[in-house]
C-alpha cells in the first residue's frame, strides 16, 4: 500500500479494467438474450484491453499494444461470426433467447 501513491495511475487503470470485466461476467451470466450476451463478451474483451494498454505503458513495451491490436482484430472477426450465427438462430427460432440452445436429454 505504500507504493500506492506512486502507482496511483496504474492501480486506478487496473481497477477500471477489472470492474469492466466483472460487469461483463455478471451480464453474461444473468442475461438470456443472445445479443446482450455477445455485448457482454465485448465488454470483457474491452476490460482486458485496458489492462494490456496500461501495462504496456508501464513497461514502455510495444508488445502489449501489439497484442491489443490483435485482440481488437480477433474480436471483430468473432463478433461478425457471432452475429451471423445469431441471425441464423433467429431464422430458426424466431427469437433469440439462449434457452433455445438446450440439448435434449434422454
Amino acid at each position, binding site marked *: 500500500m505504500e507504493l500506492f501513491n506512486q*502507482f*496511483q*495511475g496504474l492501480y*486506478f*487503470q*487496473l*481497477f*477500471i479494467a*477489472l*470492474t*469492466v470485466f*466483472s*460487469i461483463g*461476467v*455478471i*451480464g453474461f*451470466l*444473468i*442475461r*438470456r438474450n443472445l*445479443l*446482450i450476451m455477445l*455485448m*457482454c463478451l*465485448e*465488454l470483457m474483451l*474491452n476490460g482486458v*484491453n*485496458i489492462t494490456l*494498454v*496500461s501495462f504496456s*505503458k*508501464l*513497461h*514502455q513495451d*510495444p*508488445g502489449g*499494444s*501489439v497484442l*491489443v*491490436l*490483435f485482440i*481488437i*482484430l*480477433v*474480436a*471483430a*472477426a*468473432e*463478433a*461478425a*461470426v457471432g*452475429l*451471423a450465427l*445469431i*441471425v*441464423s438462430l433467429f*431464422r430458426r427460432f424466431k*427469437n*433469440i433467447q439462449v434457452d433455445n440452445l438446450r440439448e435434449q436429454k434422454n
Partner: protein
Amino acid sequence: MELLEIIQFILGISIVASSILVILNHNPVVSALFLLLSLFFTGAFYFSLGSFFIGVVQILIYAGAIAVLFVFIVMLLDLNSFKISLPGRLLTHFMGVFVGVLFFVLVTYCVLEIPFSGFKESSQNALELSLTAKEISAHMLSKYMLAFQVASLLLLAAMVGVVLLGKPSNFADLQEKDLEHH
C-alpha cells in the same frame, strides 16, 4: 491532482457507468447504444493515457465498426423486448452478482499482492512517453510477423464464414419480394 488525472478519473467512471447500463437494460437497442458509448469512453481513456494509436484504433474499429454492427443487427431482427418473470429469476440475478463480486474481490487481492517494481519512468501518465504508431508497427511487423499473417488469414476465414452463415438456408426464409427477377 493534475487535470490529466481528473480527466482519467472521470473517463474511468464513465466507462464503468455505461457498462452497467449495458447490462441493465431490457431493450437491446438501448444496450447496444450504451455499449457504443462505453467503447467510445474507453478510446478517450486510451488517449488520456498517451496511447494515441491504440485509442484511434479502438474508436475506429471497436466503436466504429463492431458496435455499429451490433446496432445494425438489432435493427435487422425484429425483437420484442419482453420481460420474463420465470420462477427463480431473482435467484439467478443474486447469484450472478455475487459471483461477479467474488471474482472482483479475489482478483483485486491478487493484484494488490503483486510487487510492482523496475518500471522505467516515474509517472504513468506522462504524455511525452507515449507509444507511437511507429514503435508499435515496427514491433508488429518484425517480431510478431507470423501472428500478423495468421490474423489476416483469420479475417479471411471469418469473412467466408459469415457469408456462408448468412445465406438463406432454405427457400422458406426468402420472402416473395426476394424472388424478383430483373
